């Protein structure tokens, strides 16, 4: 039996474009170590998962979100 498809949490919230400056939202899709949660687990649609990856990488560059949480601190 196939599990029914999880619905995309970003589509449901009505956001069209993920903003790299909004680290509160981005951190919902990061593990406690700061890795990006795969769409397989979060149920994210492909478009938003692509946007998420780009947004998180930008946010990491700006030190809004860590590359690795808990490293060296």
């Amino acid at each position, binding site marked *: 039996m196939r599990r029914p498809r999880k619905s995309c949490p970003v589509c449901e919230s009505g956001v069209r474009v993920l903003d790299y*400056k909004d680290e509160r939202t981005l951190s919902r899709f990061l593990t406690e170590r700061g890795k990006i949660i795969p769409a397989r687990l979060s149920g994210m649609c492909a478009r938003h998962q692509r946007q998420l990856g780009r947004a998180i990488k930008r946010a990491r560059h*700006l030190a809004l979100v860590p590359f690795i949480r808990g*490293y060296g601190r």
Partner: protein
Amino acid sequence: MIRPYELVYIFESALEEAQINERLDKFHSLLKTPESPEPVTSLAHWGKRTLSYPIKGKEVGYYVVAQFESQPESLGELERALKLDESVLRYLIVLNEDLAPVGAAEGEGSSEAGTEEKKEEGE
């Protein structure tokens, strides 16, 4: 062709507000051209924030977000100035996709209303 951009600065937190404004004026003056005397469309000071990881040995940075419109050709000069300035810990220049003209950056279908939203018939 004029395109919308967004620029995030992270300044050293030791700078005074006036010194930051002075530097912002300097950078933004590089974008001014005779055709567009007022390139910066919006400017927001986020103020001091703790960095998620140290940059150049600093734990705190002063964030400023600016949106501007410019020719792509004039970005090189701006980037050079940003890299030379020691008080800029980090910067990011990206195309502002929210405002980008349709069909310019992404090959998106023009009609993307919530077509896939409501599909819950039958049990």
